[in-house]
């Protein structure tokens, strides 16, 4: 029995399928990667799992069906209840609470967690000295790190990380990779989305590859590296797209269809 078990997940925007029949498992304490070219449906998958877009299919977390008995979206569990069940996430744009200090950001997410632990989480991500700072004074990289810290503050069982390394330089990204590995080793499962193939293939236990909303490959990083389909879809034909450093373009791509 996996911690998170996704079966037949579908998300439709207007007439097109952003996520098409995705199956995915995350076991406790494991670090699972989810990669794919721009617009492949990675963020939409996380949005669906955390309840931010309507979806059909089955999402079981801690043996609880989040999508309702019949997979009907009306019965789907709202994001806040999923969060309180231990399903945390980070955002591409960090999406911190700009009116609060860094420590208060963590306090909101982990109301029952003592402050000492919040400081420990911040320290472990190398932003301990920023606890009292205003979010508005942080750099982009610092915001992303605080975003990860906030997701951890409530002691979740699983953290979905939406491109935590986007916009970081290579040394920051490397440091973050180590920290994410440490988070998983500490017992918190992680579902990691990133553009940085090196990062994902370097630290993950198991990797899923999405293209056009479908899982086109899955396996250990070494297997993914050798997979011809992945090379075609991701590294070969659209190598340029994979190199696109702008996280916003990915968001725009997922949104372009039928939001209005």
């Amino acid at each position, binding site marked *: 029995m996996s911690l998170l078990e996704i079966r037949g997940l*579908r998300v*439709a925007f207007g*007439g*097109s*399928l*952003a996520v*098409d029949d995705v199956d995915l498992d995350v076991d406790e304490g494991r670090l699972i990667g989810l990669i794919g*070219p*721009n*617009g*492949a449906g990675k*963020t939409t998958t996380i*949005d669906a799992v*955390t309840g*931010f*877009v309507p979806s059909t299919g089955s999402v079981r977390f801690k043996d609880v069906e989040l999508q309702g008995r019949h997979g009907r979206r009306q019965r789907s569990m*709202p*994001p*806040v209840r999923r*969060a*309180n069940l231990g399903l*945390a*996430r980070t*955002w591409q744009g960090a*999406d*911190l*609470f*700009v*009116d*609060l200090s860094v420590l*208060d*950001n963590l*306090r*909101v*997410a982990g*109301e029952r967690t003592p402050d000492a632990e919040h400081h420990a989480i911040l320290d472990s991500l190398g932003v301990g000295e920023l606890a009292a700072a*205003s979010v*508005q*004074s942080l750099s982009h990289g610092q915001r992303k790190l605080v975003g990860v810290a*906030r*997701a951890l*503050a*409530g002691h979740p069982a699983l953290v979905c990380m939406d491109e935590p390394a986007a916009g970081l330089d290579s040394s920051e990204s490397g440091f973050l990779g180590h920290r994410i590995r440490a988070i998983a080793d500490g017992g918190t499962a992680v579902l990691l989305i990133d553009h940085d193939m090196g990062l994902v293939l370097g630290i993950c236990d198991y990797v899923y590859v999405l*293209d*056009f*909303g479908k899982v086109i490959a899955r396996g250990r990083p070494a297997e993914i590296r050798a997979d011809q389909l992945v090379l075609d879809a991701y590294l070969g*034909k*659209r190598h340029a*797209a994979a190199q696109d450093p702008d996280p916003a*373009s990915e*968001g*725009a*791509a*997922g*949104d*372009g*269809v039928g*939001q*209005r």
Partner: protein
Amino acid sequence: MNPSATASEPLPRAVRPRTWLTTKQAPAIVGGLLVVAWLVVLVTHKSQLQPTLLGVDTGALIAAVALSATLTYRGSGVVNFSVAAMAMYASFIFYDLWQFGAIFFPPPFGTLTLVTPPPGSFGSQPPAMGVWWAFVGTLCICAVMGLLFHLLIFRPLRNAPALAKVAASIGLYLVLFAIIQVRFPSSSGYSFPSLLPTGTWSIGGVVVPKDQGILVGMVVVVAAVLWAIFRYTRFGLATRAAAENQRGALILGYNPNLLAMINWVASTVLVGAFGLFLASIQTTIDPYQITLLIVPALAAALVGRFRSFPVVVIVALVFGATQQWILAISVQTWFPSWLTSQGSALQGLPTLIPFLVILAVLFFRGERLPSRGSEAALRMPKASEPRFVLVPMLVILATVIACSFAFDASWRFALEISVIAAVLCASLTVLTGFMGQVSLMQMTIGGVSAFVLSKFADAHHIPFPFGAIIAAGAGMLIGLLAAVPALRIRGVNLAIATLAAGVVIEQFVYFLPIFRTGYSQQSQANVAPPSIFGFKFGPGNWSGWIPDPAFPVFCALVLGLVIWSVVAVRRSRLGRRMLAVRSNERAAAAAGVNVAGTKLIAFAISAFIAGIGGTLFAYSISGVDTTTFSSVNSLLLIAIAYLGGIAVWEGAVISGLLFQAGIFATFLANIVHVNVNYAVYIAGIGLILASINNQEGISGTVRDTLARFGRRATPPAAPTPRVAPAGSQVRPPSPTAVGPD
């Protein structure tokens, strides 16, 4: 759209075939069917059709206001709450021009300078000029005003969040309203000339006055012309393009500012002309009622999504017609008697219809959480954590006590009003300051509490603290009702919904039998003075002291309690949750914050505080005065709350001084010797300026100045409060207008 679509693979196939009826279309179809059914009833019942047709002129003005609001929105992304006020303003410009050949200018060009022509130039008797000359002159002035509104107010705000634009338009509303109050203090007695042909047409046994028919015809033609312009001309295309994407339009060679300016001028002239026509048909104009037509107009614009001119006009005309229709059917025997007064429907009953339409539209179109891409980047004033509270509060209390005894009657009354207004502003500190939700109905919530105090608590002899608490609790219930739509809508839409709710309360709920029992007049809703253990501290208990100095002191104690609670909320987990939701609803939900629950609590706390304020107002005059608890005062309240600093407790105290008949107004009247309505005028100007440059209000300015001063006086070691300039400077570029859609 999808970058991967550039590759040769086929696009993902469509999964959901179009169903003939979706949840989004159903309300529109139901609404359409209702209108059709209503038309059938009208046509088959001539006794109802005739009076309904006599009310179409108001419908035509509502339609013109709605068209103007839609035009402004499409041209500049501003949901303009002051359109109806502009219609009213234009008709008074006309009146002065026509009667005296005079034009009035507001400050700062003198204290409402009235520029009159040299004597004899127009003959000695009014009217000074022909009506059509005055008409043309008025429209020219309207055009100039539209130009000025754009250049001075809304152009600087072009990249501001939608709510800042709304705040500025509310400021403009107050300014226009205040100027007319100063220039034409009495609301009646101005007789307007006929501009349109009089007489009637008889069509199939139904009589239609010519002027009303022509007015409706004109508004329909205007809508058709606007529709054609936006659909077929380059100008319309450019405006639509600029509304979608300012930068994109700029690259294509269109100047969005020029487009916005033209739309502003056109919409101001349009609404000015129709305001004039209505005044001429009805021969008189009630400045207060006309400005409130903004509610049905915005309702109509919402139904048309601020986009479709034909839909907007049809809905607005229906709203106008239902007003007279309800009066016509209220004489029927089956009409519920509790909705009538002296045989015909309560006057405010028709206000329910636009309100319900607004709720329905917003509820069915609203989204629970803003989804990816539609992030409303709302810049809110900083809600810094309060540091020193006890000492300043004691100082304030001591000042109030000293002043209560030192001041003479008029100043003491002003002091008391200011302290009570500060309580009401504190209700906005929680709701708008911490929670980021706008409510334009706070005064009317206070009004409900005041009535409950009078008609329920006092009538059942419930002793002081309990009666007031029950009354405030009733206000809280109203606030919770208002929060239900707020769970799905936010920002500009919530402002529209709460304004509509406030108007319903003011024009309808106050007149319900439960608030009227035993009295024919509102002013006879008595309230007994508060007392504990026989010690009375109402406003009129000490002989020779009116108001009783004990009363302002009592109000100040209540204010202290309220401020203490507000500070406690800010420092609590709840306060953190509120600020988390305020800055990012999605992220708050993902962090385990119950967004809906937090909003409900904020609305409840805020409405309870507003209810306390309402009961204090009732105690202060030993009765309920509905003019205090009006919608325009709700607008004034949010203006002064913004101006004082809406997100910190000090702001509420400062704001209280600025309320109508408060310390500042009395200062204007007694020391500067000008009309007290200038207080409203200044509040309006202040709100406009605050929404353009200074989000933190007066308290923020004072705090920054003190901090800068302190930093200079004492080098680094000084524990200067956290007034990091980061808040105001570092912010991402706002997206182009986040619409009310």
